């Protein structure tokens, strides 16, 4: 029987996020607490801390070692830092202004239509088997300023901060919708390979193309639901502009 105290980490996360405590501290506290109540030692027995009682236990990997390995293995998640200098310099020389200008020239462009087009563009990436994080490479430098340009077209006045806030959230959402549901359209993507591996491991001989076939209804629904939400966003923006 598993140890129910292992859920302490989940409790710490929920309480910490609800109280708006500093997220890095909350996550670290949850990791340490979960590891300790599960009886894991702080450090591995082998190597630097060899044989120190309390800190190590024979034959068990330490919490700090696990943390360090997982943090190093997941550096790819923070790799976008290397794109920041070029994006920042381009912004200094008018990247956002030029993006907005370009979109203002297109008469039929609206914020909502721009989001759904971007989402379809990301679904296409997924189907081509290309996995990338679009937030730093597309959303911040291009989609966001283009959306601002589209929103400002109809209005003589400066956009309200609440309006800009909502546009930013929609930009990030369009990226996530396209990325999450579109990536399963390719049999070489991680999601399909994971399901394939797990199901075969459990003794079910599923094929990768079968998995792709059965994800189609979800992909279609993901685009339709988003189209409705972005259409509603356009209506909201029009009402805001008319006020």
């Amino acid at each position, binding site marked *: 029987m*598993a140890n*129910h105290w*292992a*859920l302490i*980490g989940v409790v710490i*996360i929920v309480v910490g996020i609800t109280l708006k405590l*500093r*997220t*890095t501290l909350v996550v*670290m506290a949850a*990791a340490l607490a979960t*590891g300790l109540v*599960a009886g*894991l030692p702080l*450090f591995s027995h082998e190597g630097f801390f060899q044989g120190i009682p309390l800190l190590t236990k024979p034959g068990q990997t330490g*919490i*700090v*070692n*696990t*943390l*360090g390995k*997982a*943090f*190093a293995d*997941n550096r790819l*998640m*923070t*790799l*976008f*830092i290397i*794109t*920041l*200098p*070029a994006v*920042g310099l381009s*912004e*200094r*020389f*008018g990247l*956002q*202004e030029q*993006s907005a200008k370009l979109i203002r020239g297109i008469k039929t462009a609206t914020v909502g239509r721009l989001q759904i087009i971007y989402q379809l563009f990301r679904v296409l990436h997924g189907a081509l088997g*290309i996995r990338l994080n679009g937030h730093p*490479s597309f959303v911040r430098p291009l989609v966001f300023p283009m959306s601002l340009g589209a929103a400002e077209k109809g209005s003589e006045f400066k*956009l309200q*901060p609440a309006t800009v*806030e909502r546009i930013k959230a929609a930009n*990030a*959402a369009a990226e*996530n919708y396209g990325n999450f549901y579109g990536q399963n359209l390719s049999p070489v993507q991680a*999601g399909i390979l*994971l*399901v394939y591996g*797990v*199901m075969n491991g459990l003794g079910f001989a599923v094929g990768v193309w*079968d*998995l792709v076939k059965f*994800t189609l209804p*979800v992909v279609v*629904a993901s685009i339709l639901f988003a189209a409705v939400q972005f259409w509603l966003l356009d209506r909201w923006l029009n009402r805001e502009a008319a006020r």
Partner: protein
Amino acid sequence: MIEKLFTLDVVYALTGIVLFIFAAMTFMDKSNPRRFGSGMFWLLLGVIFAFGSWMPYWLTGVLVLAMVALDGLGRVTRGNVGEPASEQDVREPDVRAPFGNQIFVPVIAIPVVTFFFAILFRQLGMDANRGALVGLGFGGLAAMVIALGLTRAGFKTLMNEGRRLNEAMGAVNILPQLLASLGVIFTAAKVGDLIAGGIQSVIPGNNLFLLVLANCLGMALFTIVMGNSFAAFPVIATGVLVPLIIQPFGVNPAMAAIITLTAGSSGTLMTPMAANFNIVPAALLNLRDQYGVIKFQLPYALTIWAFHVLLLWLLIKIS
């Protein structure tokens, strides 16, 4: 040659160098009230990036603890680097965009180089996803060179602009890596078995609709906790989907499995634990509300989650 130069370790080392430069500039930034703590934070992250593949794991772990302590004590702040233009109003005169459409070239170079490497790696029989990551690194580097050539700005300006974006995001930057580490600890502590066991003990064994509902709910909830549907899927598939739905009802395993996976994606849209999708973008776009992206996604996520329940139930019924 290609195998030696175009590796993730080289890209990590380059990112480490960028972080060292950011750190040095922060140490000298008189406008930052906490420049020592902030500089140390970026220096430590640079060390982990540059040497993480060679340092012993316990040392990396201790450095991560130090970074969290610096942030926890409120020592990681931003200097006054200055925003280029008021982002709330982009109707500025043309003076603001002296290069016209040419200013897109450096930024578009990033995805172009990324795709190029992904395709090149696939052609060479290597992992295309790894190629995309390596390409992102070299794409960032190529974009820096192009941006410098186009604007004739100095290297210091380039790095200062990068530092402006980086410090605006702050310690949120390392959340995805921290959460991934938490996921590994959760797995080691068998949190998943507890959740699957909990679901098994509350649902009746014969009502197909309730079983489908519990399966999709368990997948979404566990994804919300782990921040990652890929971590949740093996647990739910082994503990709920296969023993309670696929085997007793003779359901097509491919259909049930892939729908269960994307039921988890609805959970990813709702959770701050998926920081790289929901929290980091909020910081990257300077949203005032760090949960603004999640709040926007919430009605969509609930709708598509409900769609998953109905779809899976209907497809089992008609087959």
